[in-house]
């Protein structure tokens, strides 16, 4: 692999992060980030690599987590003595088993049929998790003490950083496996089936079997991520396999870009940060995430990852310079438009409160606050409309030759 340096750098970064951000909270956020990264990577094996859009991927994450949580609990009760470092394997096995059971029926067809079955199964499993109290533990979920198992080299995983490094090793290994899977003949075949199932079949490959293989890989690593979630939180509840969680991972992948291996990583990191920190400033954090998502699907089909790759390509060819001027001319109106939009939404959400911005006191009850903001936004959008064509032209021009478009 030519990207050894990149992997080494990633490992170094993983090692250094908790040294830089060492509070209980930041290690907690880092931990969540790791779990989200692996979950998103596993999902992209399905979506980006196999072209299978699933609305029920949280099922495998959740079931893997439940298997791990039950093992954790049994260890705490003393029935079994499973070392913590092996728990993710149990979770992965749980995910694999679930994917084998459900995947053998749902991957027979691709496209819309697959998406619909995933939706149906997702809804069914989410409902079943609440109804079947004996296994899923009802609303209170299944919880276990991660320090109960036999200690490894004196490490008992009481401290957050120990859990972080444990998760980091597993996520690193998982990412390595998923990256390697893309390079195997089977992984390549999955892309072929994604792009042209008929042709792949004519060459003698069974599209259904390739899809199933992809599905199994994705389910296994989702289960692994679920186990890491159970270890980190020491509890798992039915929320983990709910539809909201399934939507979240879709959001991460699209935000980061499904066409690149690092896209979901970027999306997972961004989304975790946003949902952890945005709610400190506003009650509308979910709305902003929704807007970001829809905007991304509309204007950045390749995701933020795609944007970065395109920028990087232009930079490598020394063409970034000619973009700078139109970009700068668009920056101010864009910022103004975003600002007015955010202020309008915040104003709507805060009835009876006064918003102080740049020496102005904005109030929901004051009609001039609304008109002023709307006018400000309108002027900004008019300016943007005038400047945007130049940027678009420059973008097209710098990308026209030499630069490969689309997926690598």
């Amino acid at each position, binding site marked *: 692999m030519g990207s050894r340096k990149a992997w080494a750098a990633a490992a170094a970064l993983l090692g250094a992060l908790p040294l830089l951000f060492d509070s209980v909270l930041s290690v907690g956020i880092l931990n969540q980030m790791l779990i989200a990264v692996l979950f998103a990577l596993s999902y992209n094996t399905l*979506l980006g690599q196999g*072209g299978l*859009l699933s*609305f029920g991927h949280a099922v495998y994450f959740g079931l893997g987590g439940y298997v791990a949580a039950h093992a954790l609990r049994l260890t705490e009760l003393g029935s079994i003595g499973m070392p913590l470092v092996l728990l993710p394997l149990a979770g992965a096995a749980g995910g694999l088993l679930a994917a084998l059971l459900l995947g053998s*029926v*749902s991957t*027979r*067809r691709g*496209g*819309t*049929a697959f*998406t*619909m*079955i995933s*939706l*149906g*199964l997702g*809804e*069914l499993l989410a*409902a079943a998790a609440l*109804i*079947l*109290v*004996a*296994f899923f533990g009802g609303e209170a979920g299944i919880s276990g003490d991660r320090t109960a198992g036999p200690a490894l080299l004196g490490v008992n995983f009481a401290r957050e950083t120990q859990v972080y490094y444990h998760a980091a090793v597993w996520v690193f290994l998982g990412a390595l496996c998923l990256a390697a899977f893309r390079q195997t003949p089977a992984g390549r075949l999955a892309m072929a089936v994604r792009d042209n199932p008929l042709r792949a079949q004519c060459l003698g490959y069974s599209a259904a079997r390739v899809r199933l293989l992809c599905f199994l890989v994705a389910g296994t690593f989702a289960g692994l991520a679920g186990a890491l979630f159970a270890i980190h939180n020491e509890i798992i509840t039915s929320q983990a396999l709910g539809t909201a969680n399934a*939507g979240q991972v*879709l*959001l991460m992948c*699209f935000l980061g870009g499904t066409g690149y291996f690092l896209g979901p990583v970027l999306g997972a990191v961004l989304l975790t940060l946003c949902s952890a920190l945005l709610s400190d400033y506003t009650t*509308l954090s*979910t*709305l902003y995430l*929704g*807007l970001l*998502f*829809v905007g991304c*699907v*509309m*204007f950045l*089909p390749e995701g933020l990852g795609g944007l970065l790759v395109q920028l990087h390509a232009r930079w490598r060819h020394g063409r970034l310079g000619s973009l700078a001027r139109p970009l700068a001319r668009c920056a101010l109106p864009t910022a103004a438009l975003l600002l007015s939009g955010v202020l309008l*939404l915040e104003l*709507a*959400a805060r009835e009876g409160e006064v918003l102080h911005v740049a020496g102005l006191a904005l109030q929901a009850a004051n009609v001039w606050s609304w008109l002023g903001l709307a006018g400000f936004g309108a002027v900004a959008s008019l300016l943007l409309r005038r400047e945007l064509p130049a940027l678009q032209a420059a973008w097209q021009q710098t990308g026209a030759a030499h630069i490969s478009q689309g997926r690598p």
Partner: protein
Amino acid sequence: MADALLFATLNGLVTGLLLFMLASGVTLIFSMMGVLNFAHASFYMLGAYFAFSLSQHLGFWPALLLAPLLTGVLGALVERYGLRQVHRHGAVAELVFTFGLAFLIEELVQLFWGRATQDFRVPALLDFPLFTLFGQDFPAWRAFMLLLSLGIFAGLYAGLTRTRYGLILRAAITHPQTVANLGHNVPRIFMLAFGVGTALAGLAGVIAGPVLGTWPGMAASLGSLVFVIVVIGGLGSLTGAFVAALLIGLLQSWAIASSVGMADVLALLGVSFPPDHPLRDLWRLTLPQVAPLLPYVLLVLMLLLRPAGLAGNRED
């Protein structure tokens, strides 16, 4: 038992026809653009909320007319400035776009109307029991719902098969190039059709809002169900959607009325499990307990056994 069955059938019909009003729009849009509109139920929710707000100023009946119009205009705008843009990025992006849109509309509704259930009432004119049978009233409003949705079905069917516009629309679905060559503006036809579809959803919202509740979760609770119907009916088939909607409405209603459970099945088989069996909840399940989940079971079975759906053909 007979009375329960009769009521179950009546209620099943009301629910089924309501579901069809939504499913017809989804079907129409799928035939045109090949995209399943995840946000369709969100327009149903918007219809209910628009009608609630309008009825506070104008009274219910003008709202019944205006709210679907408003919803339709909004739908057409979404098609023009949203979906058409995303169309270039492929089918998956379109589906994901409508998924994001559904999420966004729910958030916006919460922002503007709040999170609580709204006090949206049946108009006084129709707020009386139509008849009482075996101690249970059948509200006049439900009969109105029944009639209105039947009327919509008839109107839609006639409109698509008997009028010039219907002809052009159907031609545009199958042969967009030819229709464009004949001088019709195909994108505008699609935009209008999208508007009509969402307006229908809005109308469904107006008539369902007062009885099924007007709250931010009303779209999510119906959205995936409408999908299920469209898929079971066979993607793109209006008749299939009609049959599937009625089937699911009746099936749920009857399942609730029944009282069969796993315990009966096990007794029939002569099997028994200890009360502390790890899967004990599974052996105690009853049909009414899982009735609202039956459509999903049906969906999975249908896709396995007859992937094209009830009335679908194998071409697409």
